[in-house]
């Protein structure tokens, strides 16, 4: 039995409700979907709508990504438990226009089941719907089983591209096509030093040996692909980059967006020491860094760890990527200007 970590909540039964109620107080651009644990942006544009759904706890998915040029609505489940297919359907119905609904979600059995069902329920009501499934975690399955891989930080940029395509007024089929194209170009490797802790009990979700770093370990402690002894930031980042580049095969002239995600508990100091090394590894290939994001984008609570996401981008995707976004967890200005390289 490990150490119990201190947590600040009121009561375990109320965590979802209180989080939602605060979120509405803090963000005036969203409203609650009546009688559901769901929120939607207030503005009503006639275009394809992006709906994302999932349990809470892997933060700030999905609530943090609702807003301008990102998700139009979020249907919340309970702590680490998906909402029902019917609630996803009702949330979508609430904001849908005749242009239809696009779902973006990570490749997990339960999420697929619910969203595929929600699609059929929407179509039954005469509302077009499609799914884009994110499979960016290259450590979760070997390349031969690419289609079985799970979705992690790549979900965020997939939502971004889908939402930008929707904003441009593209038809549902085209929004889905571009979002699929984007998500197929997104590759992520997660690394875990320490487990996160339950926000309710303060107990660790799983155990990582004191002297080990796990590459590719899942958020629930699913075994990784490599456990190394404690090594330097440079060494670990080189291992991570090599896994990514084995598949991505970056070369002169390629352009990539880089997301260095803090899975919860790393410091500003650690993150920038690691980015320094990541930058060098990418530049050595001759590839250009089109944009970078360094921060907390996907945190299974207070996990100690990080993930590196590389998104190989072309002219079509750049136009969409460049669109400004404004959400609680992710803000970006129109032009890409902060990158050196």
């Amino acid at each position, binding site marked *: 039995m490990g150490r119990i970590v201190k947590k600040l909540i009121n009561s375990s039964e109320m965590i979802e409700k209180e989080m939602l109620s605060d979120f509405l107080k803090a963000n005036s651009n969203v409203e609650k979907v009546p009688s559901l644990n769901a929120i939607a942006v207030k503005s009503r544009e006639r275009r394809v709508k992006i709906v994302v759904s999932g349990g809470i706890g892997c933060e700030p998915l999905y609530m943090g990504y609702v807003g301008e040029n990102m998700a139009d609505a979020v249907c919340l489940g309970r702590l680490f438990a998906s909402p*029902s*297919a*019917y609630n996803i359907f009702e949330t979508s119905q609430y904001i849908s226009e005749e242009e239809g609904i696009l779902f973006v979600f990570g490749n997990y*059995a*339960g999420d*697929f*089941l*619910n969203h*595929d*069902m929600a699609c*059929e*329920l929407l179509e039954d009501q005469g509302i077009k719907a499609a799914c884009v499934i994110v499979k960016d975690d290259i450590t979760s399955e070997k390349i031969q089983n690419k289609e079985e891989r799970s979705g992690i930080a790549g979900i965020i940029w997939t939502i971004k591209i889908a939402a930008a395509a929707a904003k441009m007024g593209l038809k549902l089929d085209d929004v889905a096509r571009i979002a699929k194209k984007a998500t197929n170009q997104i590759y992520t490797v997660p690394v875990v030093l320490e487990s996160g802790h339950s926000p309710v009990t303060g107990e660790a979700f799983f155990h990582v040996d004191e002297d080990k770093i796990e590459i590719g370990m899942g958020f629930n402690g699913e075994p990784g692909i490599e456990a190394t002894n404690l090594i330097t930031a440079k060494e670990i980042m080189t291992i991570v980059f090599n896994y990514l580049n084995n598949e991505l095969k970056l070369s002169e002239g390629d352009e990539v967006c880089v997301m260095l995600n803090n899975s919860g508990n790393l410091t500003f100091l650690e993150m920038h020491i690691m980015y320094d090394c990541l930058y060098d590894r990418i530049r050595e290939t001759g590839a250009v860094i089109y944009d970078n994001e360094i921060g907390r984008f996907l945190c299974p609570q207070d996990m100690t760890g990080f993930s590196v996401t590389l998104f190989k981008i072309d002219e079509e995707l750049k136009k969409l990527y460049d669109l400004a976004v404004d959400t609680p967890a992710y803000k970006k200005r129109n032009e890409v200007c902060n990158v050196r390289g």
Partner: protein
Amino acid sequence: MLEVKDCKNMFSYVSKCVVESEPELTRIDSQIGDGDHGTGMEEGFLAVHKMLEKREFDTINELFRAIGLTLIKSMGGASGVIFGTMFFSGDKEAKPTTMLDSYFLAHHFSQSLEAIKKRGRADVGDKTMIDALEPAVVKMKKYQDKSITETMKAVVDAAEEGVENTKKYRARFGRARKFGDKAIGIQDAGATSVSIIFRSMYEWIENNEREKEGE
């Protein structure tokens, strides 16, 4: 053949039987599953029973879809979607019909079986409800020109054999998956629910026929 009114009565009876099976389903599911399958099915079919008391239907197709939708709405979780799909996701191109016959059963359940396999990413041998549903559908197709009584008799045998077969398999889904070889020898709760649904359909049809003969 059953008229819409009969079919509705049949499913009221089916709902009652599923609800009464809650202790048995819970006992089976508690061995290697989450233990919530029985109460989930109870909740879903209580809702179906209530819905059938309130609503009238013009066609068999409408009735099946309403049952499916009620299960999806009331059950939640994977079972809600899977058992909901079993009734909701039939042949969309099918002509609305006012008679339930073997042909309808074969077409409806073969389509919904395919939807379940795709949606659940599962197949025969994964220790799921598909192990009972697929052999039942094979019989429905084979018997589609026969009387509904004959068909359902064969369907019940096939589904029950399917439930027996689940004892041989390791689980690929849910909590049961972690049990590995220890899952062998234990039947699947979802497959059991399928056999309860088909058995109670058959019981009602048989009773109904006997009553008619007696008149």
